């Protein structure tokens, strides 16, 4: 493996693409959007080509060079199957979000820049193994996402954006403090995660540091009671913002939990994992029940995200092979299905001006393509066999049975509730009658593109799970920390 910069390019291309998009408006109509797609497409090509390179055992690609040596900061980028899968998600959703916001005419330069910067920062999160650089990207993600909600959102968008930012920035402080602690207490100042992982950290300190890390991850995930920012942020965000929030930002929280606690604080993680399981169990029921009570379609999907990400949390904290694999699969699957639902609801909202379930209906007669698309992603939301979501949740439940049957049955109950909210949403939107949808324009070609892409991904990984599971193998093996719950 030579000294190449493909992983760096995955971060820098979207970043500089964003700067170019900022000023691209003067080059021609829609230039900023094409610049954005070009940058993301190029990054996607680089990413895919790197999959074919011969990796170095555990890592598909690894890059390491100095950034600010006097601060002990290095750039350590490493990609395994988990990061690779999430990077595909990130770049693909980036393109989707550019396409769905094609018609937004307010400040398109900054809009596309913010989309690209969100992607760039989360790519940095998925790749960095220098903890300070990780924390840097972690915090950086908030800024463009904040802009997305605050400038192009709906309703009381500034309040929602501020809530999002403050919740996550405050939670990020714990991560920062823990990272600084790790940097300052070694033999020399270093944030190299691989080096930190070899240290013998006393158990009590591990627990404290892990709490700092986990605080940031759990807020981003989010798991109740730390989820208060999510429903507002999702609801007020523009469609592209919701897509990136649900598809990317939530995944960074899950990724962080998947990657770092078992690696850096194995004993501390073993101590705290039962609490994580309990939180996840609570969240999966709580999110699902609240989803059943929503009348705003976007809010409903937001709460289902809480439920699904709580299941991911249980999978990670379960620490056995099946539950971890399930968590990994569910992360990818949920990224596709949740963003597709946000896309559909956004498109519906653009046409009818409402997201209220009581006012919607009749898509089946009036807009069959809409109805079909909804059908696919409803089945994903209730984890119908054949979708990748089913695979993920089934694996988590299988794993849970190895850990503790109470948690396994709670997950099952949450699945049952998910059938309730998904069929309710489906019934309200697709069947019935509504004056609002009588003259509804069906999905256009530009909207069908992303939908088909997301549907294919959802079904493909559901039908041919080996591809995804094979890729996740390495990361799962590394995260195995069996816990025994009494």
């Amino acid at each position, binding site marked *: 493996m030579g000294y190449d910069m493909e992983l760096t390019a995955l971060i820098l291309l979207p970043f500089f693409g964003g700067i170019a998009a900022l000023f691209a408006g003067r080059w021609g109509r829609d230039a900023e959007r094409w610049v954005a797609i070009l940058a993301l497409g190029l990054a996607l090509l680089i990413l895919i080509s790197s999959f074919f390179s011969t990796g170095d055992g555990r890592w598909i690609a690894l890059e390491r060079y100095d950034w600010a040596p006097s601060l002990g900061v290095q750039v350590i980028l490493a990609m395994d199957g988990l990061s690779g899968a999430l990077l595909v998600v990130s770049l693909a959703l980036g393109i989707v979000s550019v396409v769905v916001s094609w018609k937004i005419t307010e400040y398109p330069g900054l809009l596309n820049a913010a989309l690209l910067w969100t992607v760039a920062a989360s790519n940095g999160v998925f790749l960095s193994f220098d903890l300070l650089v990780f924390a840097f990207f972690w915090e950086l993600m908030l800024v463009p996402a*904040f802009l997305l909600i605050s400038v192009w959102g709906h309703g009381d968008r500034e309040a929602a954006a501020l809530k999002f930012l403050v919740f996550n920035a*405050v939670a990020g402080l714990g991560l920062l*403090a823990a990272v600084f602690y790790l940097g300052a207490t070694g033999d020399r100042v270093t944030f190299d995660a691989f080096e930190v992982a070899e240290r013998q950290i006393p158990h009590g300190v591990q627990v404290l540091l892990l709490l700092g890390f986990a605080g940031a991850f759990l807020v981003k995930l989010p798991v109740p009671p730390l989820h208060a920012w999510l429903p507002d942020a999702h609801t007020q965000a523009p469609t592209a913002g919701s897509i990136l929030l649900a598809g990317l930002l939530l995944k960074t929280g899950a990724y962080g939990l998947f990657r770092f606690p078992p690696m850096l604080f194995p004993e501390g993680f073993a101590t705290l994992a039962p609490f994580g399981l309990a939180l996840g169990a609570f969240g999966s029921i709580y999110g699902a029940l609240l989803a059943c009570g929503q009348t705003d379609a976007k809010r409903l999907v937001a709460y289902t995200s809480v439920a699904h990400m709580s299941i991911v949390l249980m999978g990670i904290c379960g620490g056995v092979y099946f539950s971890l694999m399930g968590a990994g699969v569910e992360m990818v699957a949920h990224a596709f299905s949740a963003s597709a639902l946000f896309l559909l609801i956004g498109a519906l909202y653009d046409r009818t001006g409402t997201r209220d379930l009581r006012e919607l209906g009749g898509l089946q007669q009036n807009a069959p393509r809409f109805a079909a698309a909804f059908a696919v992603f409803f089945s994903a939301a209730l984890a119908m066999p054949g979708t990748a979501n089913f695979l993920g949740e089934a694996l988590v439940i299988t794993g849970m049975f190895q850990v503790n049957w109470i948690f396994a049955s709670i997950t099952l109950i949450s699945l049952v509730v998910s059938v309730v909210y998904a069929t309710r949403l489906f019934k309200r939107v697709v069947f019935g009658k509504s004056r609002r949808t009588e003259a509804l324009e069906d999905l256009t070609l530009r909207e069908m593109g992303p939908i088909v892409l997301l549907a294919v991904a959802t079904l493909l990984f559901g039908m041919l799970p080996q591809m995804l599971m094979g890729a996740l193998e390495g990361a799962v093996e590394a995260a195995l920390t069996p816990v025994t719950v009494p």
Partner: protein
Amino acid sequence: MPSFPALVPVILLGVGAVAAMLAAPRLPGLSRWIAGTALVCASVALALRLGAPASLSELLADDRLARLAGLGICLAGLGSLAFLRPAGPSKEGPALLLLATLGGTVLAGAIHAASLFLGLELITLALVALFVLPLDRPALEAGYKFLILGAAAAATLLMGLALAHAATGSLALAALGGEGVLLALAAALLLAGLAFKFALVPFHMWTPDAFTGAPGAAAAFAGAASKIAVVVALIRLDAVGLPEVWALGLAAFGGASMLLGNIAALRQDSLARMLGYSSVAHAGYIAAALGAGAASAPAAAGFYILAYAPALLAALCVATLLGRETRIGDLRGLVWSRPLAGAALAVALVSLAGLPVSAGFFGKYAIFSALIEARAWLLLGLALLGSALGAYYYLRFVALIFRRVEAPAHAPLRWTDGLLLALATGVTLLLGVRPDLLLDLVRTALG
């Protein structure tokens, strides 16, 4: 004896101040140009000799630390000059700013009680005059408060120096180390005197008034340039080995400032007043790190104040641009009506909040690491709490800057303002990507 080149910046500033003062009544424009040229020349003179060998005299040190801090002070002075508005009948602004800068450079090199006092008072007196320049009620109030409190602080400082002299028989700062009741009392009084200039709780009362009442440029100088000088004085005194009460007091004042400054800033709707209270909190972070006494604290303090200065300058420049009364609602859609001002203010506030990609993120890194290194868990907790509060109140303002507005009114920008905003934003972002550029400078300066 310091060589002649070492005195060039001081001479330039002094002569420039006199020339600017003479030119002020007839040719206020020329006076401003003289001040600008003197500051640029002094900065260049300092920058060229940044790495020259150190030499000490009785009064002034000509070492890397003094030169780096002097450079920072001159540049911050230049930045303040850029948005110093001609105010009413008085035209002495540029000359006074030069005098204050001169005081700052003297203080940065001060290694003797006399030069310490001289530097501090030169800044204070010049700033009092600068504060009252507009000659209206709020300005007079700010100046009056600063004068009265400053006089009390000066008396305290002098008393501290006198006691230190009584205890050690010397007025050289390096000889003040030791133990004893007398020296402890001296250290406490010294600290109180410096804490006033550094706006630490409980000596911070002048700050919010200065930020709202005085001209923005004067407040910026008080918040950025003069604090760089005071940080150097604190670092030098820290290394002397004063009695325990010094470090303890510094940590206590720092902790109180972080807490109260941030809490007070939380509820401010006026941009300038928020910046004023938050500057108390930022001073608190620095004082806490120095007080905790980690080996890396001086470098952290130096980095932090130099990274803080451009953000404060940019923010206060925008506050001046929009008028002293700027409230949070007036920022609505600023980035669309005045893109440069809006973007600069947003970057500055993000930096003050300590988010990437900005200098403030690494400033936070430096301070937190110093506190962790010193095992100062209580102070670390306060700093974390402060940052959490800061994230909220800064970003409240940022949120409005980006609000969509129908048909924003475009307004032109003065070229000096524009240049300052562009440079300050550039520096803030650059340090957010390459913090080592500045940190290495600070570390070599500290030796």
